[in-house]
């Protein structure tokens, strides 16, 4: 009921993001979604990729700090107010969202949203009950 997200520690210096994503390109890793969180000095690059375990190995070999986390992914209808509804439901259930990001899918009528929450099972159950379908690793590639 969750998918694997790779997070990467990226220092803020020119060219660094290009180097890191270049490593993935060289190894034929397909990136489906990404988000970057940044501070003045460093950022965290979060990736949804087709081969999470291989990606982690590649980073390790390149001495790039990365880890893998299970995150919740839900399909949200591509209509005004749908995302707001999902967030409202989670909030009303006392679930706080550390961060979230969305990406468009080949299916035109819906977007996939990644939610980083403390308890994936609980949040997943809440969203399912409200009629949102949850996405598995296999659904996105």
């Amino acid at each position, binding site marked *: 009921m969750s998918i694997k997200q790779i997070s990467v520690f990226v220092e803020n210096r020119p060219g660094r993001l290009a180097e890191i994503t270049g490593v993935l390109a060289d190894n034929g890793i397909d990136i489906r979604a990404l988000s970057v969180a940044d501070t003045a000095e*460093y950022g965290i690059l979060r990736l949804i990729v087709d081969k999470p375990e291989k990606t982690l190995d590649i980073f390790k070999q390149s001495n790039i700090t990365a*880890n893998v986390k299970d995150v919740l992914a839900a399909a949200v209808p591509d209509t005004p107010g749908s995302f707001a509804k999902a967030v409202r439901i989670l909030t009303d259930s006392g679930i706080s969202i550390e961060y979230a990001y969305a990406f468009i899918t080949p299916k035109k009528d819906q977007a996939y949203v990644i939610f980083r929450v403390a308890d994936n099972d609980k949040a997943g159950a809440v969203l399912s009950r409200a009629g949102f379908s949850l996405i598995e690793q296999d659904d996105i590639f």
Partner: protein
Amino acid sequence: MNYYNEHIETASADKMRALQSERLKTAVGRCYNNVPLYKKKLDEAGVKPADIKTIDDIIKLPFTTKQDLRDSYPFDMFAVPMGDIVRIHASSGTTGKQTVVGYTKNDIDVWSEGAARSLIAYGAAKTDVFHVSYGYGLFTGGLGLHYGSETIGAATVPVSAGNTERQVEIMRDFGSDVLCCTPSYAMFIGETLKKMNIDPKSLKLRIGIFGAEPWTENMRLEIEKALAIDAYDIYGLSEVAGPGVSFECKEKNGLHVNEDFFYPEIVDKDTLEPVPDGEYGELVFTCIGKEAMPLLRYRTRDVSALTREKCPCGRTLVKMLRPKGRTDDMLIIRGVNVFPSQIEHVILSFGMEPNYQIVVDRENNLDTMTVKIEMSEKFFSDEIKQLEAAQKKISEGLMSALSVSAKVRLVEPDSIPRSMGKAVRVVDSRRI
């Protein structure tokens, strides 16, 4: 008044040597008979107190190091019973252990006179109001200048550090004539004056006494302009006494050493052999005027040179040139002694790898310290708030271990340059 103690400060070389010889004999006897470490050191060197007849025999004596003081923590270096001790100071140690220094009543008088001679040399007088902004406490800066100022009979204001705007108000309202603090704090006061729209010439301030950290001739000129004063250097270290071991005169070109109390030598930092006057080497002091802790040939790790050229001020006291570095890895950050090993200790205590680099700089004339730490997988989180909380915790750990603030910066693995396989630990970008 030109001198606090003319008789000593302008003594002939012969007279000074006779006094030093007499005092050295007393100090060596006191050490040998009361401090087991010194008995052991002298026995090992095959030297008996009776072998010390004149000050020239000092080169027969073994050296004392900061490690000796640490190993003697807290009171094993004291040569007198606790009943005779009236004051105890301490300075920062490398891994938590402090260096402890005891003073008898006479030692406090010696230290106070050393400071008093300095203040008179700068042109201060008993009619002056002294604003002492050095920290009071275990650090010797505050109380050292405080006692010196009281000894010359000046009105002493123990302001201590902090709240700069209030300090400026006190200085203005009390009509302070003399300011005592670190040179970097003096620069900061200068900026505060500007911010408060106060013309430095409107203050009574005339003299600044600055020490406890290295500073340059350029800084002197800037401070003199920013505060409309004459700025003078004062040197001291807690192991020997505190501020007042040596001092500048109006010539501002070298510090006269109170050599009747603190006998200076310069030795080659590798061979430990004495070097001729004028040559740079490691500064070594023997506390011939002290009772509680008459250290023999204490290695300060400061790099300086001695000069006995005639000084136009009339003092015959030997001059040491402004220290131009260290022979160990100690850093002085805003007047506080910091050893890289202390920082490593804190990093390890958080379960991080000791891959770090200390970057010291000076921004707006205040020292800044940034500790770069390489990120490790164990420490990494996908949440920024976790990383920021960790940074804050390490920063607080550094503050409590060092007593000086440090910014923590997380960097990528292997991003700190290695030299011969070892990370380059310290980058000091201050031009001092």
